[in-house]
């Protein structure tokens, strides 16, 4: 538990890079905060009203204005410049995900996450695919590429420990990638208000050691597809079930569609 300004330990490859930018900004803004608020307090004490003393008559100082325009400009540009590479790495990588990434499909709907696994052949849309609800399993040390879609409203796929957040938008398939660096159990949450069950739209992430993941896939892939969600058996409030089945999330079977998916 952390009550302060430290981030929790990240568990993805770009997580620590994101955190280091956070810490740089924390230091820069922290210093500015102390200087500005400190100056404010000192001035207020020092120049409080005293009998017989008048304020200095001054309308400003053009050189000072130039200084405090240029310095903040340089600082924020430096932060933007620093941020750009990590941003592009996290969101785009090389063509939206590393080439050898394990493909997964996550389809959100009120109020659950359905994860389609490619099965032992590691290809989506083949007969050995299987689906788990609210359970994201993945191997440690290997990139995964998630094709994110939604069947009804906008949800947001939030994996705090991996520093991943991406809205799932109906009508779009948005690629998300990350690589877990530590095995363990982690939370998955919804970060976009999506209806009355938004607060309980959560799942779990299980990061396995590579071998353990392969045996988990073999086990799940051969099990009867009990967990494949039929559209009708959801907790989501019923009326939209038929519509949800027809929603675009199910239409986008080709991972190649991400090009048009971007707005």
């Amino acid at each position, binding site marked *: 538990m*952390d009550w302060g300004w430290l981030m929790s330990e990240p568990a993805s490859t770009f997580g620590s890079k*994101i955190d280091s930018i956070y810490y740089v*900004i924390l230091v820069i803004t922290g210093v500015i905060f102390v200087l500005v608020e400190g100056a404010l307090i000192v001035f*207020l004490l020092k*120049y409080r009203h005293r009998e017989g003393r008048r304020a200095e008559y001054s309308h400003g100082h053009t050189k*000072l204005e130039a200084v405090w325009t240029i310095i903040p400009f340089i600082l924020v540009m430096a932060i933007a410049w620093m941020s750009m590479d990590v941003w592009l790495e996290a969101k785009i990588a090389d063509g939206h995900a590393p080439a050898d990434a394990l493909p997964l499909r996550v389809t959100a709907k009120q109020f659950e996450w359905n994860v389609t696994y490619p099965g032992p052949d590691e290809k989506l849309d083949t007969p050995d695919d299987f689906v788990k609800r609210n359970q994201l399993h993945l191997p440690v040390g290997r990139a995964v590429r998630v094709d994110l879609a939604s069947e009804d409203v906008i949800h947001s796929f939030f994996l705090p420990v991996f520093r991943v957040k991406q809205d799932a938008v109906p009508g779009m398939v948005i690629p998300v990638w990350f690589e877990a660096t530590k095995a363990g159990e982690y939370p998955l949450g919804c970060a976009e208000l999506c209806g009355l069950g938004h*607060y309980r739209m959560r799942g779990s992430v299980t990061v396995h050691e590579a071998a353990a993941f392969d045996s988990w896939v073999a086990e799940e892939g051969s099990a009867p597809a009990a967990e494949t969600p039929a559209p009708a058996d959801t907790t989501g*409030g019923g009326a939209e079930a038929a519509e949800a089945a027809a929603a675009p999330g199910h239409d986008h079977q080709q991972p190649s569609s991400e090009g048009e998916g971007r707005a």
Partner: protein
Amino acid sequence: MSTVPIEIGHPSVQHWAEPGHADHRSFLRKYIFSTDHKVIGCQFLIMSLTFLLIGGLLAMLIRWQLGWPGTAVPGGAILGDAKAPGGIILPEFYNSLVTMHGTIMIFFAIMPLLVGVFGNWLIPLHVGAADMAFPRLNMASFWTALPAGVIMLSSFFVTGGSAAAGWTAYAPLSASPELSGVYMGQKLWCLSLIVLGFSSLMGAVNYITTIVNMRAPGMKWMRLPLPIWALFITAILVLLAIPVLTGALILLLFDQTIGTTFFLPKDGGQPLMWQHLFWYFGHPEVYILILPAMGIASEVISNGSRKPIFGYKFMVYAIVAIAFLGWIVWGHHMFQSGMNPLLGGAFMTSTMIIAVPSAIKVFNWLGTIYRGDIHFHVPMLNALAFVAMFVIGGLSGVFMASTPVDIYIHDTYFIVAHIHYVLFGGSLFAIFAGIYFWYPKFFGRMLNPTLGKIHFALTFVFYNAVFFPMHNLGLDGMMRRIYDPNQYEYLAQYQPMNTFISVSALLLGASQLIFLFNFLWSLRGGKKAPANPWNSNSLEWTLPSPPPHGNFPTMPTVYRGPYEYSVPGREADYWPQSEPPGEPERKAAHREEVHA
């Protein structure tokens, strides 16, 4: 710069508003359907303070649920079984609470307080005019805003409850009743904001015309008090931004009512289109909500420091720069929305740049108090709190502007903390400063300073106790708009912090009762206000409190800027804008003009 005196007010306006004549208007024309900008300002004040109270009560309910999840709100049974059976808030009502708290505070409290109240109170008096350019349009503006508010409140009482898709109303949730469970409420929400938009446009047209056309002789642009500069630029933003929102709201209403699919993915609609339209309005809106506050703070800080505002021209340029840049940063609300990440990178850059003019303003406020002669009157305390809190809100914005950091903190309590540091710590403290400062002018009585100081101290402490820890909750990964964070194991451990915030929030709410009491009691019981209780320079302080209908007995002539405090060689440490210069001063002024 040309010194040609500017034509003021249309003769017909001057004529009907001839002061000194006996006021024969009926009660109805004087106080209800009044065209007097001062009365309309007071009407907006009463309306928006009422909404501030309602919005605050909604916040208390939100904090109750987060502080003590799943327990009955004391007296909450009156909310009814559809909202809170036995006083226990339902998740769907919680969504409705966060939606309506945001909507009411932004559209019906802060915006009308800044633009409706201070725009009406200050513009004609500060520029030296008898009234607004279009007094009847001004009256219509208020009488359009009020029904909009009534429509918004009525949505609490319809079946399905009020809107529950967030104040941002992201489609498709907002566009499809079967997905949100909200039927009439969301339609009323759209309708109310469409109607309110007309009110805002009428106000904006009036403000711009009045400031451009009706300045008294000698009131050059660079002699305008800074609240007027801020309100002028704000009015331009309103005029350009509100129609975008209105258009988007009409499309959203069509999606809900007549089966169109502008924002629904089936049949070619685009959910992201709503976000682009909403934020294209929404980001200028952020500056609509802060620029007038900056103007008020500048006025009060210069007065309280008995010192000219530092870098007047740069303050003006910063306002103008913010207004331009404000149009090209809307995408920073959408970094994680599915918008092309390359576009996100571009929006990050423009967003970083807009931090610069805000920084300039902060440094100039510091420059103003430096070597000042600081009087800690109640308006000054609130204005200083504005600066101190706006610094925090500005700095926390840098975290979210950085796209990679935003991945983690987007839609968490970090953004909740940020927006409240800007809108409460920023705008609302400036509003308090403005009310304490100008209440005597418009109600003829002083607010009690002791109660004012107690109210300020309690508000400042509890405000920070509420919102500062929210940064940390956000960094711990707590999402916003979550009915019960304990659903998540990793968030359940922060329940003590949530309870602490809720206790502070209840105390913050209770502290506002002091202000309410002071406001109401002083109307009759307050000390009679002199014409110029703060020894201030702008034109309204030359008039009795309250000024008569029609404002100025004779056309004022303006000789100098509004911040001539502590001028050497003068006995008084202030110098009213309309006081004719003496001979030595005239020579000095001439020298200055030659140099300029």
